[in-house]
């Protein structure tokens, strides 16, 4: 059965079972590999993408539920790594292995949409992804920095 999905503004018609988790449709059918698989049970957030602006853990989100909605993945954040969140991440040299970072950035984008100047407590509540390398110290600083950059751009 064909699933008609809009990912980063582009239309994709995917021949997959409707119950296929959105993660696998994005990674294996559409071929966008920036979104990561780690736990497969909505625990870690490595697979975070946006569906109509909401962060979802795509490993447990049926692809059929995203039909007709706007899906955004890390590849859709900017063409060249120039989004202020990405810029802040680079300034702080936040990633280590990097595996969790797509998900971290997607969770952060959703937070900053709702809460442009988040407090530490806002960050704690919204960015609940796992980073096994323990980059949290720099991620927190990068989130605050991104908020500044976005404000300066506005």
């Amino acid at each position: 059965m064909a699933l008609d999905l809009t990912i980063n503004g582009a239309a994709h018609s995917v021949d997959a079972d409707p119950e296929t988790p959105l993660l696998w449709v994005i990674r294996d059918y559409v071929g966008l590999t920036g979104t990561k698989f780690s736990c497969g049970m909505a625990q870690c957030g490595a697979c975070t993408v946006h569906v109509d602006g909401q962060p979802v853990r795509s490993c447990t989100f049926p692809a059929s539920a995203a039909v007709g909605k706007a899906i955004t993945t890390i590849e859709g954040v900017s063409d060249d790594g120039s989004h202020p969140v990405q810029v802040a991440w680079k300034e702080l040299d936040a990633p280590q292995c990097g595996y969790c970072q797509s998900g971290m950035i997607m969770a952060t984008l959703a937070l900053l949409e709702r809460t442009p100047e988040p407090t530490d407590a806002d960050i704690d509540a919204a960015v609940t992804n796992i980073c096994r390398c323990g980059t949290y110290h720099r991620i927190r600083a990068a989130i605050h920095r991104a908020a500044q950059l976005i404000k300066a751009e506005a």
Partner: protein
Amino acid sequence: MTEKNRTTLDRREFLATSTAATGAFVLGFWLPPNARAAVPHGASWYEDPANREINAWIVIDPDDTVTIRIAQTELGQGVWTSNAMMVCEELACDWDTVKLEYASANRDFREAAPEWTLPVPGEGAYDRDGGGAPEFRDRSYVNGIPDSLYRRMRTNAAASVRDGRYYLQLAGAEARERLLLAAASELSVPVNELAVKDGVITHAASGRTLSYGQVAARAAETPHPNPEAINIKPPSEWTLMGTEQHNRDVPMKVTGETMYGIDVRLPGMKWAAVRSCPVYGGDIQSFDFDAVRERPGVVSAHQLPIPNPELIRGRVFGGGVAIVADHWHQAKAAIDAMPIEWDIPAHLANRNTAGMHTELVAALDAPGTVRVDEGDVDAVLAKADRVIEATYSTPYLPRARMEPGNATVLVTDERVDIWIGDQSPQETRHSAAVITGIPEENVYVHLCHLGGGYGRNGNGPQAEHAITIANENRGTPIHMLWSREEDFVGTTYRAMGVARLRAALDDDGWPLAIDVRTAMQGDGFGPTSSFNNVARYHAPNYRFSNHTTDFHVPVGTRRGIGQAAHEFYRESFIDELAHAAGKDPYLYRRELVARSNLPHKDDLVRALDLAAEMSDWGTPLPEGLARAIALEERGADVEGTVTISAVVHTVSITRDGRVKLERVDMAHDKGFGLVNPLSVKKQLEGQIVWFYNDAMLQKNTVADGRIVENNYDRFPVARIHESPPEINIQFFETNHWLKGLGHDRATSVQSAIGDAIFQITGKRYRDLPFGQHDLSWG
């Protein structure tokens, strides 16, 4: 594939792959124009005629592009950047435009190391101007070749800088000198009239300049006349090394472009999901593929024998089965649905943590191997008025990297190609040759970045599984991917352990005798490794013995080889002694180190002093907060390389028992110099979180012979709210080269939280993780 991704893969290997593969097989990777025509079929190594390789580490194109080859694997530790910095420092090219690619593990097999990379310059660990004191000089345990081209391609033992620095600096210097010789001959001037900066060679007298790209072709043909005379720059002359450099792969990591093993896609590729016997040493009895073969996408099933322990350093995993399908989620769904019967040895089927713990404690009283025995410990303990005794325990712990185990393998009758994030490509190459029967010289390991490393052999048999499946599907690329749950089955663990420490104290509270007994399983790491580290604190009578049991869980490296557990035992016990003595734990440590005859004791004292000063040690804290201090070191008991740190942790505990690491003040050894201090800080910050996990959250238990916690629901990992809000790191200079710092730093989180719990709640817990206890108070 984008332009940037080229740097993560060795383009020459892809060229070779594209010609050797049968039929119309074309790799989905970047190929330069006319590549096919240019590659001689069956060439042992392909050198693009447009590119000029100066030596095995350095390629310079006519357009001045400098490419540096990295022979270790980037797993977040920054080796992609620091290795390149060491080459670039000497090469004197423009750091900002350098490109990076992985070195070829295949070529490493075919070629010997250049002679000039073999002798280590200088006088060893204490020679500031020399090459340090490398430890891993050969790979003889793989297949007997003593000095392959890239020497040690392993990424382990926090050794990439320690062991690689001298020959990476030499590689840059050798190339620079040959480029200068080529320019001198081009310009017909003496070489000593030339200067170079950022890849531009200048003849000051005539004002003429040549770029590296312009002379690379000639330099490639110009041998070094006297390679024994090449010198490396001492730290006083470093201009790039020693500066904080952002990691070169970070830009790719914020756009999702980084090529991890899990991201490899080849035309015609099929996916494999695996189920291994959850009890190590168990095997398949039967499986019913007919029950699932009609499911969508399913192609085939393959029984996986117990991986050959000789290929994975003696570790015994279980046998299993794989299902191959068009997509991984189809393979995974099929294997979940397939009936499987396991053949589990009876003596393993009822193994459980409680019984294993009892065995370990019993082993403490059985005869062990005495490793140090100074004075007469038994006599002093027997007549002492005051004996303090404590028994500590630590659980099995895996690395739980975020990228689950995977590898993509294509086996044809001629060759094997493996795309993998791998900390030991040389061993994987060997495994492929043994499993397929194809000569090792025809095995190509294409390195990918790793989504977390933390221990070389913790990958378990990920490569062996993929190679086995691909070998039964010759001509079809197979991408084998473990589920998260399989990754917990396929990894090695740090051994669970117990330690009993006893000390006799004199009237002033100083130790007269210390007896240390540790117990853990006898295979793998631990008992025989460098755990004689309680002796860091002086006692005139001292004994250390190891006691072993026989357990079936495979044990391996995990951010070190078990030292973290031993530092938990040691530092916790010293805290207990200090409290018993009524002395300040910082000054108590300081005095006992000063009394020792450790070769590095002055640096240990300096570390303690600096950490105490940084943390405002001794100033009052509000109720519910406490400070604790600890030493961390690797190698402080022997002459040579060492890494030393002392850390003060400020910990809060709410009345309802919620623990928070509020502030970390770390005084860290910088030796003669750090290559990339920014990478070092990141490693230290990350390890603070790592050992918070160990201290508070993580353990693996065994029930019915199997590991119970196999995903992040039952195996918690700290999240951002658990990361300390304040981290202060200060480096202090010492007179030695460092032993490395990718592991066994910040181990102090464990004992410090334990002691803070004691200070705040009055409760003393000695078994990790502390989060399993009721920590409420008041």
